[in-house]
C-alpha cells in the first residue's frame, strides 16, 4: 500500500486503506519526537512552505516542527505580512512560490476550495490545513490517531461531536473519517448550528448535549467561534454555556472511560469547563503531540523523488 496522490485536500476522498497507512506511519513517527536529537535526515533538501491566510498557532507550528524534524526547510508565510495586503491574488502568490521550487505547499484559507484550486494549478503537493467551513484533514487524522491510540480501535466506537457543526471544518473532516473507519457519530448543538442536510452524512442529530453524550466513548467539543456572534446564530455565550458546556455535571452520562477532545483553541467555561479540559478524561494535549506525527507522516508520504 502506498499513497498515490499528489495532494491531501480532504478526508472525503481518502480511502480507508489510505487513512490506515497514514495512521500507521504516524504511529512510527511518534518516537522521533521523544529522542534527545529530534531529527532524522529523511527530507534533507526538501522545502515546505506554510501559506497561512488565517490565524493559527497549533497547526502552523505543528507543520513547521514536523518539517524540521524530517530535516526539510520550512518557510512560513502569513497573509498579514505578505504581498496579500498589497492585493496580490492567491493564484499569483502561488505561481510565484511555485517559481521558487518548493516541494510541498501547506495552505490554510478562509475560502472553501482554495487548496483544491491551487492543487490544479501548481506542480507541488498541496496539503489542506483548513479551508473555510469545508475540511481540515490533518486535524481529523490526528484525532483518529489519538482515539485509536487510547481505545485500540476506531470500529464501533460511539463519538459525539458537539458545537457549531455548520461552521466547523473539523466536524466535517472527522465525520467523513470516523464513518469510513466504522465508528458511529452523533452531533449536537443549537438548531442554528446544525446544517440542514447533516443526516445525509450518516450521523444522528441531537438538540441537547445530555442526549448526545449518553454512553459515548469519545466526546469532541468544538470551539465556539466567538467572532461569529454578530451573525446571530446564538443569543449569548452565557446561554450557550448553560446548554452546551461540557462539565462535571454532565460528563457522567458518557462511558466511564470516555475521552474528551478539543481541537483548540479552548474557550474555557464556554464549550468546556476548565476542570474537564484539564481533567483525567482530557486528551487535548495528546492531540497536539500526535498532530506533529501525523504531519510528519504526510510530508514523508507525499514527497517523492523523481516521478
Amino acid at each position, binding site marked *: 500500500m502506498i499513497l498515490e496522490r499528489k495532494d491531501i485536500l480532504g478526508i472525503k476522498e481518502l480511502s480507508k486503506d489510505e487513512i490506515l497507512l497514514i495512521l500507521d506511519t504516524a504511529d512510527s513517527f511518534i518516537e522521533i519526537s521523544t529522542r534527545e536529537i529530534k531529527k532524522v535526515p529523511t527530507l534533507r533538501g526538501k522545502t515546505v512552505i506554510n501559506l497561512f491566510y488565517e490565524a493559527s498557532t497549533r497547526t502552523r507550528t505543528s507543520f513547521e516542527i514536523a518539517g524540521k524534524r524530517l530535516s526539510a526547510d520550512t518557510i512560513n508565510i502569513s497573509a498579514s505580512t505578505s504581498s496579500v495586503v498589497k492585493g496580490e491574488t492567491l493564484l499569483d502568490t502561488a505561481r510565484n512560490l511555485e517559481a521558487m521550487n518548493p516541494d510541498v505547499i501547506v495552505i490554510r484559507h478562509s475560502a472553501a476550495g482554495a487548496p483544491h484550486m491551487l492543487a490544479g494549478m501548481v506542480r507541488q503537493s498541496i496539503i489542506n490545513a483548513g479551508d473555510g467551513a469545508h475540511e481540515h484533514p490533518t486535524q481529523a487524522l490526528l484525532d483518529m490517531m489519538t482515539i485509536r491510540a487510547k481505545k485500540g480501535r476506531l470500529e464501533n466506537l460511539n463519538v459525539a461531536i458537539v458545537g457549531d457543526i455548520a461552521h466547523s471544518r473539523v466536524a466535517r473532516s472527522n465525520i467523513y473519517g470516523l464513518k469510513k473507519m466504522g465508528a458511529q457519530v452523533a452531533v449536537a448543538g443549537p438548531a442554528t448550528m446544525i446544517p440542514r442536510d447533516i443526516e445525509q452524512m450518516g450521523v444522528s442529530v441531537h438538540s441537547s448535549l445530555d442526549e448526545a453524550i449518553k454512553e459515548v466513548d469519545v466526546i469532541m467539543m468544538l470551539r465556539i467561534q466567538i467572532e461569529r456572534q454578530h451573525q446571530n446564530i446564538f443569543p449569548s455565550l452565557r446561554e450557550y454555556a448553560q446548554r452546551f458546556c461540557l462539565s462535571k455535571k454532565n460528563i457522567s452520562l458518557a462511558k466511564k472511560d470516555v475521552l474528551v477532545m478539543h481541537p483548540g483553541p479552548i474557550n474555557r467555561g464556554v464549550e468546556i469547563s476548565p476542570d474537564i479540559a484539564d481533567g483525567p478524561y482530557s486528551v487535548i494535549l495528546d492531540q497536539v503531540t500526535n498532530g506533529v506525527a501525523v504531519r510528519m507522516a504526510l510530508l514523508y508520504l507525499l514527497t517523492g*523523488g523523481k516521478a
Partner: protein
Amino acid sequence: MKNKNRVVMDAEGIDRSLTRIAYEILEKNKGLDDLVLIGIRTGGIYLANRLQRKIAAIEGIEAPSGILDVTLYRDDLQKTNKKPRIGKTDIAFSLDDRKVVLVDDVLFTGRTIRAAMDALIDFGRPRLIQLAVLIDRGHRELPIRADFVGKNLPSSLWEDVSVKLTEKDGVDEVVIEMDSEE
C-alpha cells in the same frame, strides 16, 4: 522461467552459528558489561532476540535489546516515489558509552549498516559499535565489514539470499533464490 531455490543453511545450521556468535560476542567484549543488542528491522529483531537468549543462557544475565528501523536514514529514499512503510524504532535506554552490537540477517552492499550507524549516533555516543550478521554475501559498496559472521556465502548479483525465520516465516532456513527474470 527458471526458479531454482537452494537451501544453504537449515535450522540446525542457523542455531549453531548463533551459538558460536553468542560466545564470540562474549569473548571479544570480555563479558556483558555495557553490552546492548540492537536488531535491525525486521530479520535482525528476531536474531537479536535469539542471541539475547543464548547469551543469557551462558552468562545468566540478559543484555538489553532494542529495535531499529533504518528506513528514514536510507540513501535511496529520494530516488523513489514508492515510500517504504516505516516500522517502529524502540530503544528504551541510552546508548551513551554502551557497547552496541548491531544485528542483521544479511550483509550485502553495506548501505543498511551505514544507515543504521547514522541512526544510532542520533541516539547517543556509543563506546563502540560492532556488527553481527547471519550471512555475509559479499558485494560491498561501502567500507563496512562484520565483526561476527554466521556464514560467508559468495553469491552472484542476480541471486537473492533470503533468511527465513520461524518467527516470521514459520521455518528456519537460508535459501538462495535465482532471480526468475534472468
